């Protein structure tokens, strides 16, 4: 019985449909199917996640994808996005034309809880039984018509987003729903198992009066008020101050009445809803016995085995990191030569002057730093998506959770932190898989401590120049040992920093590690492609634009002011005369205690564009031509460089100090930009820069001055 009422009002805005569902129910896959291959994804920066919206294929209906949630009683920031939106449906003008509740057909009982909560808002609700192909393979039978009849959903449509089944029917059903349908009030979909109705009656009666403006059943409102003390904020605008006080008082009385009867008032909704599911819907779907061992469980006998599990994990991670380094090498070289070629072409075509310098050094150089990391980012995103889609990511988190819990994080932090060794940018982006906001932000703060691949050229040249190619104890190569020590320094500091965060920013929620282990699934090529496309694009546009802007600023600092006869000058003199050079001299007193001279100071400033820029800056400052023998001659020049009083500029101590600086200092604008984007605030990137700069400075001071005190030069 679908009674409809047309308000007859002509709306200019196109109709929209909300799409909700549990995490991992295939919601995004369905969204992509419905909106089609050429959908336009609008990214709305949320606090922790993106809300996506797109137009349904060959239709004017707008589809809004919302973060996955298990219930409308939100426990996290992304879940709150969903519950806040649903709360806005009290106002008929902000109601969607319909709601699609995506339910995992292989796991229907649990998915039904959210569906029932949504259904009770009396907006036309379509339950999509997704992954119906998988359910059929598992011999799970669901009577869709019976489910529709009993829950009074608008429609129940079996579908498979993976294979495109049922998509047409969903679109047709949506098209046929008229605008502004107001379904008649349906009794709430729950079964009272504790005898509480008498006790909560005063609360229900009070809310009954405002039924027309609340647009939500008083019984459900009453249960939510009892379970969540913050829920009253959703109702406050419908009541006067005195009414609100009365509401609070009644809630308090009801709570104490229930306490007397020993009824746990916090979870009446959950028990009543599951009682409804078990008693009223139980025969609609075949239940899976807890005793049955699924295919995934059998696979996990090895993959999360106490011995073989961690071994397999090491193999997988080793393979991925090797791939990031080795697979990316060729495309990175190609991009580098492409940029050099473009720069040379532009240099040849453009007339000498400011514009040429801006184009070749500022813009093309800046775009270069963005593009050069792109292959690594794409490869990492590919593997992350693969791990996530296949279901292995959850197993990794399961195995590593205890280790991470010790430092106040959870199992999901492992992968972003390890990715940091390749590049902090995709690593920060991959932290999105951490649901807990606090753990996610702390993980992001630790990622830059992992020595990324951009730091490698700096370490390599410093070690090659100043660490003797000798063996410790006759068999351990000293250069390799120093390099490894540098990597470990970052890792151990990250553990320490995590403990500091744990002390000063402790986790408030207990829900840190409640995680479903989804069945293993074959990842779908189109889904992988879309993830790579979306994330790659958002990196290029958001982080890219900031990087470009800072590159131009840095170019300006390194090129101005110019002396009138700048042509005759060497590049070293030009830089020394520029703002960057002046800044280098200006900060020299500050970096001198760390063992750095003004040239290194300039390098520290320019390497904010990207760390490996340090090497090219030093080359420029030592008047070196950009030829193949660059690193060799740079090493020579650095070894020979002397202060005016004849002391060498680079000593073992100052080189060590410089490497320590590179381990700790937050000198990467791309990381800064991506953290700004991912946390949607300036506070976190500034905190990152602040704590890492202090850490770098103090550590270098200890290394250099402490070394002096111990008698090293």
């Amino acid at each position: 019985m679908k009674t409809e009422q047309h308000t007859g009002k002509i709306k200019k805005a196109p109709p929209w449909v909300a799409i909700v569902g549990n995490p991992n129910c295939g919601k995004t896959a369905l969204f992509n199917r419905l909106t089609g291959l050429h959908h336009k994804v609008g990214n709305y920066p949320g606090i922790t996640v993106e809300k996506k919206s797109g137009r349904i294929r060959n239709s004017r209906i707008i589809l809004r994808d919302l973060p996955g949630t298990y219930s409308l009683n939100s426990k996290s920031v992304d879940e709150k996005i969903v519950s806040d939106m649903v709360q806005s449906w009290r106002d008929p003008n902000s109601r969607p034309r319909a709601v699609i509740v995506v339910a995992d057909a292989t796991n229907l009982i649990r998915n039904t809880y959210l569906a029932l909560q949504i259904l009770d808002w009396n907006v036309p609700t379509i339950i999509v039984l997704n992954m119906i192909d998988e359910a059929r393979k598992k011999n799970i039978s669901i009577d869709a018509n019976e489910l529709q009849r009993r829950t009074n959903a608008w429609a129940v449509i079996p579908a498979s987003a993976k294979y495109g089944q049922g998509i047409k029917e969903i679109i047709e059903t949506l098209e046929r729903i008229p605008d502004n349908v107001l379904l008649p009030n349906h009794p709430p979909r729950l079964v009272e198992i504790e005898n509480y109705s008498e006790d909560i009656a005063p609360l229900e009666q009070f809310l009954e009066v405002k039924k027309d403006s609340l647009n939500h059943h008083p019984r459900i409102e009453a249960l939510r008020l009892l379970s969540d003390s913050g829920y009253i904020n959703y109702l406050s605008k419908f009541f006067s101050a005195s009414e609100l006080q009365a509401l609070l008082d009644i809630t308090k009385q009801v709570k104490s009445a229930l306490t007397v009867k020993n009824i746990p008032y916090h979870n009446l909704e959950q028990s009543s809803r599951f009682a409804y599911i078990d008693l009223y819907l139980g025969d609609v779907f075949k239940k899976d016995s807890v005793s049955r061992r699924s295919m995934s469980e059998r696979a996990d006998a090895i993959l999360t085995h106490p011995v073989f599990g961690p071994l397999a994990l090491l193999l997988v991670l080793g393979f991925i990191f090797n791939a990031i380094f080795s697979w990316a090498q060729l495309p990175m070289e190609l991009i580098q030569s492409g940029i050099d070629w473009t720069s040379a072409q532009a240099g040849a075509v453009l007339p000498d002057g400011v514009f040429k310098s801006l184009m070749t050094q500022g813009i093309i150089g800046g775009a270069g730093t963005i593009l050069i990391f792109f292959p690594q980012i794409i490869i990492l995103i590919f593997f992350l998506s693969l791990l996530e889609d296949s279901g292995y990511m959850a197993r990794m988190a399961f195995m590593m959770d205890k280790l991470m819990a010790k430092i106040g994080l959870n199992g999901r932090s492992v992968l972003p932190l390890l990715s940091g060794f390749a590049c902090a940018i995709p690593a920060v982006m991959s932290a999105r898989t951490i649901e807990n906001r606090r753990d996610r932000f702390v993980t992001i703060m630790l990622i830059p401590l992992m020595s990324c691949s951009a730091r490698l050229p700096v370490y390599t040249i410093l070690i090659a120049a100043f660490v003797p190619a000798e063996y410790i104890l006759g068999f351990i190569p000293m250069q390799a040992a120093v390099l490894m020590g540098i990597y470990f320094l970052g890792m151990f500091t990250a553990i320490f920093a995590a403990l500091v965060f744990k002390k000063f920013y402790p986790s408030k929620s207990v829900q840190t590690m409640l995680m479903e282990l989804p069945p293993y699934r074959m990842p779908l090529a189109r889904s992988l492609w879309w993830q790579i496309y979306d994330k790659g694009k958002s990196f290029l546009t958001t982080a890219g634009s900031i990087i470009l802007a800072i590159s131009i600023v840095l170019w300006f600092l390194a090129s101005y002011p110019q002396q009138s006869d700048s042509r005759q000058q060497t590049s070293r003199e030009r830089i020394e005369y520029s703002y960057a050079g002046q800044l280098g001299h200006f900060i020299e007193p500050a970096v001198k205690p760390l063992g750095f001279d003004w040239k290194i100071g300039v390098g520290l400033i320019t390497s904010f564009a990207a760390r490996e820029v340090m090497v090219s800056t030093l080359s420029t400052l030592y008047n070196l031509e950009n030829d193949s023998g660059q690193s060799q001659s740079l090493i020579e020049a650095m070894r020979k460089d002397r202060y005016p009083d004849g002391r060498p500029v680079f000593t073992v101590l100052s080189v060590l100090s410089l490497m320590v600086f590179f381990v700790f200092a937050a000198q990467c604008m791309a990381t800064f930009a991506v953290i700004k984007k991912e946390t949607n605030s300036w506070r976190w990137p500034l905190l990152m820069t602040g704590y890492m700069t202090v850490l770098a400075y103090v550590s270098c001071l200890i290394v250099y001055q402490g070394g002096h005190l111990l008698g090293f030069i």
Partner: protein
Amino acid sequence: MHRNRGKGMGKNTKERKMQEIKLADLKPGQEATICSLTEHNSGNDRLRELGLIDGTPLRVIKYAPLGDPIEIKVRGFYLSLRKSMARQIRVRLRGNIEN
């Protein structure tokens, strides 16, 4: 269905209470039924929303290689939860109760 068949008959309440143990004390492979989630907090709240309400059967799959968290199968899906949480869940062993 075959809950407490034979052996569970005629037990008095006190003995029944005695059978209640913490989920975190179960061994891999053991099946049990949820009796109660002792405390009220957002974690337990979420467990109830996932369908872990009184009377729900479950099976312990395993403990993670480092001993924590614990993996259970409940209502047709596999769930990982930390032992600290599993200590707050009281369960009653199903089927053959070992002495």
